[in-house]
Each structure stands twice: as structure tokens, then as C-alpha cells.
């Protein structure tokens, strides 16, 4: 037994300590712990998903999962004061007005404002004509508006809703939560009943070349 320990120390622990100093090994341990934690969370999620599916079946609720359709950006509205893109899918591909578009990370990019046979007009989050009802955490709902200058605004949120910086702004589309961004600034306005809320979008609306449509 002692001989085995010596051998282990000689051939495993000793080279291991030389090759991986204590900081590195403690980081590896930490990552292993995190990895295990994620695995357990994933297992729990799987169980919850299964349970959710069973309960839905029992209650007769149909599961709605939107199809993701890939679309390429053909071009943009030729103005510096509008943020509208044209995509290569249209009515014949089943794209209709109001279809939401997300980026490859799953963050909201915009919505279809007009659909033609061969192509569609995608109004981006930051366009001044963009508007969409959204949720702020689970506190309240408001109307998201584009500002043309990177950040977005949420209108019609009353002052007593306890909105704070960092709150998640999202919306629910066919049982799928879609993140828009986070609250960047909250201001109470003197002469207005509603808060002045600024949101930093998660998606990069400055450079859009491909989108995923939620059908």
C-alpha cells in the first residue's frame, strides 16, 4: 500500500505539481466544480421539461415552438436616418408582417414591417418607427421604441413599478422568451406620469448581415 502511494506520488503528483502550479490547479478544480454544477442543472432542467410536457399533455395545452428561418440581408434603406433592412424572403416563403427577427445569439433584432412576394422589409430595433410591447423582468409591460442612436426607449411605464438599472427587457413569443436587452437608465420626469427608461440592446443593430425569423 505504501509502495503504491510512493509510486503515485512519484509518477503522478510530483510531475503534476511541476507542470501545473497551484493557481492553475485550483482554477481547474473550480472549473470542474462549475462543470459539474452545470451538468446537474441541465439534468434538473431535463426533468422539469419532461414534467412540463407531461402536465401540458394532461391539461391539453399544445406546445408551440416557432420555426427558425434563416434569411440573408440584401440591402438597406438608403438613408442615414432610417434603420431598415431588406431580406431575401417574402410572402411566398410564408413571411408575413409582424414576424420577429433574432440574431444568431437569439437576441431580438427587429420585425417585418412589410412583406412582398420576393423580399421583405425588416424594421430594426433602433429605427424611429419601430415599436413593440415588451416586458421588464416580470414587473410590468411597456412599449419599446427605437431612437436611431444605439439605445432604445420604453414608453408608458408608471413610476411605481420599481424599475431598476440592469433589469432584463424581454418578450414572450410562442412560449419562447426572447431577450431584447437591459435597462440602462431610469429617470423620473417632473411633468410626466411615466418613467423615462433607456434600454441597451443585446443585439448589434449596427452591422446586420443575416437574421433568423420566428415563424
Amino acid at each position, binding site marked *: 500500500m505504501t509502495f503504491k502511494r510512493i509510486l503515485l506520488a512519484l509518477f503522478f503528483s510530483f510531475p503534476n505539481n511541476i507542470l501545473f502550479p497551484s493557481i492553475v490547479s485550483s482554477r481547474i478544480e473550480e472549473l470542474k466544480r462549475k462543470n459539474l454544477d452545470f451538468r446537474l442543472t441541465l439534468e434538473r432542467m431535463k426533468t422539469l421539461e419532461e414534467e412540463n410536457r407531461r402536465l401540458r399533455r394532461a391539461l391539453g395545452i399544445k406546445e408551440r415552438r416557432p420555426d427558425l428561418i434563416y434569411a440573408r440581408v440584401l*440591402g438597406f434603406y438608403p438613408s442615414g*436616418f432610417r434603420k431598415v433592412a431588406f431580406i431575401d424572403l417574402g410572402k411566398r416563403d410564408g413571411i408575413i408582417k409582424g414576424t420577429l427577427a433574432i440574431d444568431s445569439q437569439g437576441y431580438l433584432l427587429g420585425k417585418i414591417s412589410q412583406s412582398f412576394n420576393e423580399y421583405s422589409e425588416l424594421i430594426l430595433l433602433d429605427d*424611429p*418607427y419601430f415599436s413593440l410591447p415588451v416586458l421588464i423582468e416580470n414587473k410590468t409591460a411597456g412599449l419599446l421604441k427605437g431612437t436611431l*442612436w444605439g439605445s432604445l426607449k420604453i414608453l408608458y411605464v408608471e413610476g411605481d413599478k420599481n424599475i431598476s438599472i440592469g433589469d432584463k427587457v424581454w418578450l414572450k413569443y410562442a412560449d419562447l422568451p426572447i431577450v431584447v436587452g437591459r435597462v440602462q437608465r431610469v429617470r423620473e420626469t417632473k411633468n410626466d406620469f411615466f418613467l423615462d427608461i433607456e434600454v441597451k440592446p443585446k443585439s448589434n443593430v*449596427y452591422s446586420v448581415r443575416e437574421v433568423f425569423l420566428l415563424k
Partner: protein
Amino acid sequence: MRTTLIKLSIALFLFFLVDFLKPFGFYFCSEFLFLGILFVSLNLAFLYSFGFAFVFGLFKDLFPPQSLLFYTFSFVLINMFLRLTLKYFHGRSIIKNLVVGLAIIFYALLNSIEVGQILPSLIFSFFMQSLLVFFIMERFLLKWVTD
């Protein structure tokens, strides 16, 4: 003259394509076609420059279709403003530069009113980028057209 007009038509059409394709994404907020119209208004006789402003304004309005002929109106207005100003204050490059600056601010304000949001930061950014690109573009375009 005919060659000049053909060359300018090609240049303006290419500017429109660049505006449509936006190779720099939305980081670049200026408009090449608008700068081309400024160039044409400064360097061509009134009749020709008016024609260019009208035709390309209409072209921009029709693609995508607009209910208001906003760009036709703005381009023609800017063309007339430039021609009239230069008619009375000609000969000095400082006047020309000042008029170009004023035309850019005027166009940015018109667009801001059209979208219903006046953002000083965006107007400033549009002004700076447009001015810089215009003077670079003018140099090369003038050389190409007069060659």
C-alpha cells in the same frame, strides 16, 4: 459635356448602390448619393444639376416606394439653395465650403423632421462624416470627370 453627364450618372448610380448596400453598416451615417447631388449642384449648370437632383431624388423615392416624394423635394430644394447662394456669393472657396456645410445641416434637419426625432448627436455625426467624405470625394470625382 455628354461624356461628363454620362460619367456623373454612373457615379451617382454607384453612390446609390453604396447607400443601399451599406458596406460600413450603420457606423457610417452619411449618404453618398446626397453628397453626389451636392457635388453636381456645385459644379454643373443649373439646368443639368436640377435634372440630376430631380431624377435621382425620384429614383431614391421609388426604391423603396414612398408615399411622399421626400427625397425629390429635398434634393431639388438643396440644389436650388446651392445654385442661388453661389450666384450671389461666388468666387471664394470659403463661401462654397460654408454653403456645403449649411446644406448638410439643412438636409439632416429635414430628415430628422421627417422621422420625427431631432437628435443633435446624430446630426453632428452626420455633418462631420458628410463634410469629410465630401471634400475627399470632390477631389477624386472632379479629377475623373474632367479627365
